[in-house]
């Protein structure tokens, strides 16, 4: 360990190396505690791959981060950067998110909150009808029982004290002080830069073609063009393309794209204080409907723009524009924030959320190809869950122990029994 390591790095190293090494579960066998014990190739330089690289590098692994494009150029650059507990009901994803939230705050302190544009802005979920408010309150009560800080906002007046520009026609809502935001590309960049200082290296513009194995065990990855990167383990952090990378590694997992559009306005300043969204959002996140769903999500950025979401459609990788979706998102935003009528839309992002059939990410070693660890399929929560994902991956690399508060078995690839190799 470096002599000048910060307290946070010391803490991480302790967390990652203490206590009984469950060597049997480890991806490779460590020769000696604390030594550089092997090489890991992380595929995908989005936020999740960046976090995996950061945590693995800090655990002493020699990490090579590869991406066929540029860092943070995929789905990472097309999200709002939400770290939300508010949209998650009691269950394994909420547990993972709460771990991730703690880790993100630590990362923020370590890497610099301004550098990540980490903002403890809090989320404000608003109902647009009395019936919607009743449903929202029930949902929030369940979250409170699970330990989430969820504060009822009783009246329209109370809402407007929190958000002065909200419509006066909303019956009420729930405030979630724990919701955070980061700027995802800056966060990924900071994590990669931090990992580089711990010896990680990067290869951008290269594409992984397949796994190289010996005796059924992975010994490296072959790049398109023939070059082989030797590795003791490979992390599939390819996001929406994690399904395809899984196939190439001989370890397929069912990750599919779910298209979303985000509208970006002209710069107007910090007029919206929280992440504000309508109660329908929670239902849509959890929905299995392939048809278009929109709910209204509005928030300001440090850059002064306002981001408006969120749409969900299963249309494959259709990269086209949909005026209908954009109009619906605009109409939803204008309904809860009437001042937006006169604000101009400058740009629309379109991204593909990587989703799995049960809406949970795939995090853990693949039993079919020892040496492969998946870390993808986070759907719309990848920014938020990235820190915990990187942390868990480092634990798997080390062979444990896994944190008690997260039911890690809910995320392992073994759960997709129907997927054949």
């Amino acid at each position, binding site marked *: 360990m470096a002599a000048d390591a910060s307290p946070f790095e010391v803490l991480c190293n302790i967390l990652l190396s203490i206590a009984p090494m469950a060597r049997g579960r480890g991806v490779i066998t460590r020769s000696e505690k604390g030594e550089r014990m092997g090489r890991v190739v992380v595929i995908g330089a989005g936020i999740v791959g960046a976090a995996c690289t950061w945590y693995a590098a800090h655990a002493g692994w020699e990490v090579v981060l590869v991406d066929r494009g540029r860092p943070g150029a995929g789905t990472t650059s097309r999200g709002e950067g939400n770290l939300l507990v508010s949209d998650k009901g009691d269950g394994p994803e909420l547990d993972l998110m709460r771990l991730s939230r703690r880790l993100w705050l630590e990362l923020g302190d370590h890497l610099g909150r301004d550098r990540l544009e980490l903002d403890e802005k809090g989320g404000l979920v608003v109902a647009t009808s009395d019936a919607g408010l009743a449903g929202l309150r029930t949902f929030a009560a369940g979250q409170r029982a699970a330990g989430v800080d969820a504060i009822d906002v009783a009246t329209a007046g109370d809402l407007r*004290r929190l958000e*002065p520009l909200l419509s006066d026609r909303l019956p009420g809502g729930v405030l979630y002080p724990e919701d955070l935001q980061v700027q995802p590309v800056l966060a990924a960049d900071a994590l990669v830069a931090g990992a580089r200082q711990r010896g990680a290296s990067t290869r951008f513009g290269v594409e992984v073609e397949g796994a190289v194995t010996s005796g059924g065990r992975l010994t490296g990855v072959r790049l398109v063009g023939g070059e082989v990167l030797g590795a003791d383990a490979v992390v599939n952090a390819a996001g929406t393309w994690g399904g395809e990378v899984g196939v190439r590694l001989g370890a397929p997992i069912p990750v599919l794209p779910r298209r979303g559009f985000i509208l970006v306005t*002209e710069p107007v*300043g910090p007029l919206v204080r929280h992440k504000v969204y309508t109660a329908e959002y929670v239902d849509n996140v959890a929905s299995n409907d392939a048809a278009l769903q929109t709910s209204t999500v509005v928030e300001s950025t440090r850059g002064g723009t306002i981001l408006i979401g969120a749409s969900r459609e299963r249309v494959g990788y259709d990269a086209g524009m949909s005026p209908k979706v954009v109009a619906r998102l605009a109409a939803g935003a204008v309904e809860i924030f009437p001042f937006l009528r006169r604000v*101009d839309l400058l740009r629309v992002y379109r991204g593909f959320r990587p989703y799995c059939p049960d809406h949970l990410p795939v995090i853990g070693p693949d039993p079919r190809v020892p040496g492969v660890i998946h870390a993808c399929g986070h759907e719309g929560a990848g920014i938020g869950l990235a820190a915990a994902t990187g942390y868990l991956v480092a634990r798997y690399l080390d062979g444990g122990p896994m944190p008690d508060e997260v039911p890690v078995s809910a995320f392992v690839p073994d759960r997709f029994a129907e997927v054949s190799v």
Partner: protein
Amino acid sequence: MTRPDHVGPGLGFTFDGRRIHHRPGQTVGAALVEHDILAWRTTRHDGRPRGLFCGIGVCFDCLVTVDGIPNQRACVVLADEVEEITTQSGSGHDRLALRDPADD
């Protein structure tokens, strides 16, 4: 919208209250430049003055408030069609930040 069909002296708009005469067909930006007014907004961060740059509607540097609507391109808006031009600062939407919910 119908355009005023008049020609000659008296045609004009106000710029921060000052009367600016212009010729039919001129843009707001051109009319201001002809009156030696080169800047009509200040930037969001450094408060720097800005006026025409690309002159053809691409760069959005010449934004100005036209009849109360902020962030209109002076190089595109026709002077014939406006009554009141006001300088703007920052995002052009700054007054919203000061709004008190009690106002409505």
